[in-house]
């Protein structure tokens, strides 16, 4: 299989994963489906914003810290922890054991999902859309990631 090569973290990497996610109908059913939220991704000091609209992840962009307020919630880990998660996904084709978004949120003292606004309605979208978000990151198994 000729897989797209991209460096994590970068907009190019998120765009490649978006492409996988947007084109695979299997990721839009079975408990997934339409998803409408803005997700922040913090990798060490770098920040990105993913916009989910309907069945698509329509946009990925690099943002500054002040834009975190626009995110319904953001997923934060060190670069090392993101790398461990993505390597687990590469190895198994999807996240397993302690590397699913849910288990990372439970298992880490500082959690995984956070917000800057303390609006619980927006924060809880992490749980309401958990399957979609998991499918999205599992899609990274189909690209070749460098770090």
């Amino acid at each position, binding site marked *: 299989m000729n897989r797209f090569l991209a460096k994590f973290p970068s907009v190019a990497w998120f765009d490649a994963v978006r492409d996988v996610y947007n084109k695979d109908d299997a990721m839009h059913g079975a408990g997934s489906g339409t998803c409408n939220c803005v997700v922040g991704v913090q990798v060490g000091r770098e920040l990105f914003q993913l916009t989910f609209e309907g069945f698509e992840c329509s946009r990925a962009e690099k943002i500054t810290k002040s834009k975190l307020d626009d995110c319904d919630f953001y997923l934060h880990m060190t670069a090392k922890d993101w790398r461990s998660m993505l390597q687990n996904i590469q190895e198994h084709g999807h996240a397993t054991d302690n590397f699913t978004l849910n288990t990372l949120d439970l298992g880490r003292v500082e959690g995984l999902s956070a917000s800057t606004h303390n609006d619980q309605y927006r924060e809880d979208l992490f*749980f309401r859309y958990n399957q979609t978000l998991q499918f999205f990151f599992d899609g990274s198994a189909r690209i070749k990631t460098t770090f």
Partner: protein
Amino acid sequence: MATAKDADRVRPALTLTKEELEVEVPEPRLNWMNQWREWGVRVKPGEKGLTLGSLNVGLYGEIPMNWPDRSRNPRGAIGVTGTPPVAIQIKDKVDLWAPCAAELYEEAIQRRWAPATDVDWTAIHPLPEDIERAICQVCTEICQYAIIDVEVITNWQHQMAYGYHEVKQFLATTTLDATRRHEAFRKRALVNGGGLGYEGPCQVSRLLLESSGGWTETVTGLVLVRAMFTQMMIRYLTRFAYNGVERKIYECVTQDLARLITYGIEHLKYALAHAPEKQGSILTTLAIGFRMFNRDLRDPVLREALAIVFGGGIAGARSEGMHVFYEMLDEYVEELLNTCQYLRLPVAIEQLPKVFQKDQRSLPGE
């Protein structure tokens, strides 16, 4: 099988007589055709399709604070006078409304899943007997919680005024979610050589079933006590899932419960904003709910079963498994207190029974 002779015997009865054919059909008056409260509405689908919430335009979008009509008249239609009232008790918006109800309804429809086909049941594999028995016991209790959810919610649905159909429709999805939860966990219990275990203690369940004073108070127990704990338990089960079958079930159920929890929290927020005097009854219900929950937790069955699942067997249950069980309880309490803070409900950890206080609880054997 009918014979030709039978057909001969039947046919004359179906043949209309000359008099019957000459029955006078009155000219249609069609006087109902000009009776509309608002005509010419043309809602256009948006980016999310033609959603339930998008229909709230003009007078069809008028959602009054009180709906005195105790009939099944759909909001915006012309009611029939003289209809005997039906048993609608919840007629005030403050008693059931959550602004997100229509959105949650659409989400529940969109993000549906089917345990029969969306779970790869072939991925199950034999487990050590102690673990299989523990999982089956946990499944049994979650099945029971689901049955209670259905009964509690449906018992209130018919009492809610039709003027607030968004909430009624969303709650219909939560009962489907609960039946699906029952289905999925029953299937997991029966798919791997196990079976159903003990019925759990029912103090919280009884509180929910007997809660008849108000829907808001029922929501307090149903969401802040039962659903939030169940969701936390299922999230921990995901962390310790033994195969893809369980992981898939747990992940989907977490989402289903998240919608019910969101409705509950947003309803409580709405109720407290529009009727601050409800704070007293909400706090009292919460206190009673925790007392009942405390009694349920004295029963060792669920605690031991979860500890075995978390600890990887009986041997690991005593140390690691039980430690994880109480970590799960602490996480639940933390989420609950955060939610109370969000709702501006004055609840402190010191007010909860000792088992919910990390520094105060005495563990079994101590």
